Each structure stands twice: as structure tokens, then as C-alpha cells.
């Protein structure tokens, strides 16, 4: 049987404020954002910090959403499912996301993330403007700006990993820290 106390204990130790596993829909994002906004208000977080956390959260969640939307998975496929967690330990917010991606896309995504991680603050600003001004926009409105924006707003390298699942899929996880 599932050890619920084990789950509880891990979440408690990581101070998880909210977590979700499943299909990411627009309605779900609206609810999560509303819940997180009121939690941040209740914690009386500085407006500056609150805005940063909220902004980064929007980008992370919409990344998950667009990813699910763009890839044509059968609706019963487990690969439609994603996981998301947000916690706060010692003045640092941690946003963790995980989702399946097609194995053949790992190299491209890894390349893009490594490219972003090479840039310093000024270079990120220039790169953002370049992609904003010249980049192609996908039909759904994602423009490849999300990850650059997250790196810029957090001022930290993108901490990611790819775990091979089988010959079709890998599990991509992103661990974002926002220091207070």
C-alpha cells in the first residue's frame, strides 16, 4: 500500500506549499495561480519578491501547458501527465517541474538550455531582446522566451535534468530557485 506518511514527511521537510500531478489545463493554471497569489499575500511577502515568484511561476506552468498542447500524445498516454511543486526553504522559493518529452527532442532542448546558461546578466538581456524582436512565434504564442525570462528574473543558471524512460520518452525536470 502507498505510504502516505512518507509522502507527507517528504513534503513537510521541503516545505511544499502546493503540488500537483496530472494533465495541465488552462483552468487548472488559473486555479493554481489564484491559490499561490493568496498564499504569497498571506505570507506578507515583499511586493518585489511576490512579483518575481508569481512571474516565474506563470512561465513554468505555461511551459508545461504549451508542451502538452503542442505534442500530439494520445489522451490516455501517461506522457500527458506532468508534475509541479512549489516550496519555500530558508527564504528561498523552489519551483520544480517535471514532464515527459520525446527522446528525439532531448538534444535540442539541452542545447538551448546550455546556451542560456553560458550567458551573464547583460548577455541574457541582449539575447532576450534579440529573440523578442526576431524570433518566430509558435501558433500558441510561445516564442522561446520563457526559459530566457526565467534565467533573467531568477539571476541563476537553469538547473535541469533528463532521465531516460524508454526508447520513446525521457523525463525532463527543472529546478528553479528564487532567492529572497
Amino acid at each position, binding site marked *: 500500500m502507498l505510504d502516505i506518511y512518507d509522502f507527507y514527511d517528504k513534503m513537510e521537510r521541503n516545505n511544499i506549499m502546493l503540488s500537483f500531478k496530472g494533465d495541465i489545463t488552462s483552468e487548472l493554471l488559473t486555479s493554481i495561480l489564484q491559490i499561490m497569489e493568496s498564499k504569497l499575500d498571506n505570507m506578507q511577502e515583499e*511586493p518585489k519578491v511576490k512579483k518575481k515568484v508569481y512571474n516565474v511561476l506563470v512561465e513554468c506552468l505555461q511551459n508545461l501547458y504549451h508542451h502538452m498542447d503542442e505534442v500530439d500524445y494520445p489522451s490516455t498516454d501517461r506522457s500527458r501527465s506532468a508534475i509541479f511543486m512549489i516550496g519555500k526553504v530558508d527564504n528561498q522559493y523552489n519551483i520544480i517541474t517535471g514532464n515527459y518529452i520525446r527522446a528525439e527532442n532531448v538534444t535540442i532542448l539541452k542545447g538551448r538550455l546550455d546556451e542560456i546558461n553560458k550567458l551573464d546578466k547583460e548577455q541574457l538581456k541582449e539575447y532576450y531582446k534579440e529573440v523578442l524582436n526576431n524570433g518566430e512565434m509558435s501558433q500558441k*504564442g*510561445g516564442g522561446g522566451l520563457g526559459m530566457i525570462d526565467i534565467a533573467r528574473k531568477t539571476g541563476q543558471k537553469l538547473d535541469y535534468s533528463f532521465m531516460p524512460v524508454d526508447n520513446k520518452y525521457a523525463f525532463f525536470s527543472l529546478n528553479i530557485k528564487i532567492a529572497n
Partner: protein
Amino acid sequence: MDKLTIEGTPKTPTVNFDYEKGHMEIKGRSIPENSIEFYKPMVEWLEKYAGKPQGMTNVNIQLEYFNTSSSKCILDVFKKLEAISKAGNQIVINWYYEQDDEDMLEAGEDYQAIINVPFKMIETEG
């Protein structure tokens, strides 16, 4: 030309484009998953406005949050304004940001660097 009025929602801003006054305002949050659809009427309205603009156009952008999906659409709106300005009409874009919100100020400066229209950065109290 008709006014363009869109009521704000938790994910989309309040929009007021007024032809008579030459006044345009986008205010609130812009975090929809699909921004292209939301910004389409604004871009279309500006295309019409460009045909017979007022001598002076004032644009107020007062956003609390916006996502990267909106950032491209906002640039499209600004590019329409830039074309109107290039045709010899006066335009000012007022970019509002809350005190201490450096990210929002920087976002305004990014646009200022790309778009050839006078920007005014206006700090408001949080």
C-alpha cells in the same frame, strides 16, 4: 471609428482605445496562454487608426504582470505605433511600473531599445 473596450479578467488586461481622444490604455495583467488571439483586435484597431490618426497619440501601458507570450504581442502593438510615428505623427508611450519593480522597468527599457517612439518611464507607488 469605434472605441475598443475590453474588460479585464484575472489573466487579461483592461483595454481602452479611444479614437476621438487619441488615447490608448492597456492596464492590469496579461498572462493568457494564448496571447495572439487576445491582442488581435488591438492590432487590427491600430491598423485602422493608422489610416487617420490624431495629431497626438498617448499610450498608457500599466501592467502588473505579463508573460513572455504577451511580450511578443505587446511588441506587435508597439510596431504599429512606430509606423504611425514614422508617418509624422506624435506618439508617446507611457510605461508604468511600481516602485521597486525592477523587472517591469527593465521590460519597458527593452521595448524602448527596440522601438523608435518616445517612451516615458513612470514610477507609481506599490
